[in-house]
């Protein structure tokens, strides 16, 4: 108990130091295929003029931690600089046969599954190194999955600030209210990372998160 209090105190002091430097490590977390890399690409395109990673409709396309250093964003006369960390999607199950169903050969599917498992482990290990986290959820999917609850609960336990993004709001099935109902204590911003809908509001959310 006392150790937890001391840990929280040290974390909050370190975090306030990071805040003062306006140079934070911002992680993109969430389940596979939520659109983390699409959002990372959107941010990098908007502010650096280049993409960050490859996207695919096949799950677990991002299987390694990707870092883009010194991303500077501006909004209403304010400026924010951060290192953007795109992480592999966190899952509790990975079946190479699922990759074969979408056209991968067995050898390739097994390799992808193995890399994906390592990616999940790395993403979890990196949780401790984040100053702030954007959770990217697919707004067309059920938000009550235990993986979402586990990630968000872990970040809360570590006192890491969280912004929830409901991605893919351009799709008819998207339901932002469901995400808001599932996580009422968090600010939820609906965006389409692919088409850029509502990204200005997302950037404002980032300033509120770490600015």
């Amino acid at each position, binding site marked *: 108990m006392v150790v937890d209090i001391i840990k929280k105190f040290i974390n909050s002091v370190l975090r306030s130091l990071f805040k003062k430097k306006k140079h934070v490590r911002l992680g993109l977390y969430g389940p596979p295929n939520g659109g983390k890399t699409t959002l990372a690409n959107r941010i990098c395109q908007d502010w650096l003029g280049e993409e960050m990673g490859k996207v695919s409709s096949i799950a677990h396309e991002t299987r390694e931690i990707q870092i883009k250093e010194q991303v500077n964003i501006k909004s209403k006369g304010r400026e924010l600089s951060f290192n953007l960390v795109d992480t592999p999607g966190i899952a*509790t199950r990975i079946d190479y046969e699922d990759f074969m169903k979408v056209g991968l050969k067995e050898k390739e599917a097994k390799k992808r599954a193995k890399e994906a498992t390592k990616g999940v482990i790395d993403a*979890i290990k990196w949780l401790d190194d984040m100053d702030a986290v954007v959770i990217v959820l697919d707004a067309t999917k059920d938000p009550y999955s235990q993986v979402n609850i586990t990630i968000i609960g872990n970040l809360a336990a570590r006192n890491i600030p969280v912004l929830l993004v409901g991605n893919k709001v351009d799709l008819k099935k998207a339901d932002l209210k469901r995400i808001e109902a599932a996580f009422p204590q968090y600010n939820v911003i609906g965006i389409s990372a692919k088409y850029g809908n509502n990204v200005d509001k997302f950037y404002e959310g980032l300033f509120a998160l770490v600015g």
Partner: protein
Amino acid sequence: MALTLHFIPYAEIEDLGSARRVKKIIDLVKENKIVLLEGKLKKQEETDLIEITMEEISDKFKGIELAVISPEKKDKDFFKKLKHNFFGLLLGDRVGFTIIGPAAIVKEIKKDPDKIELFTQDIKKKKK
């Protein structure tokens, strides 16, 4: 095909360290049993469970499905809330249930405030 549900009372894991708790669950799930745990794991133990699951994944073991069910905190009545919080403090992680099943058997666990739906894999289809 018969499903095996393995109940773990909280008392059985109460004195175990985090690593042993997680290992006990994983070992049972790898035997194709659906584990029904009284109470819940700590947040860090949940991520440990995911990490260890990933380390164990193979051609045969495809991972897990997991759901934690906590009692609803909908009571607006002050005394009911107080009672709920009191028992929560008293019982700690013993409150609620955790279901962990092997992904090869459990396709999905859906939670609803009033029910839990556990969808199993279509074994016949898989054998074809």
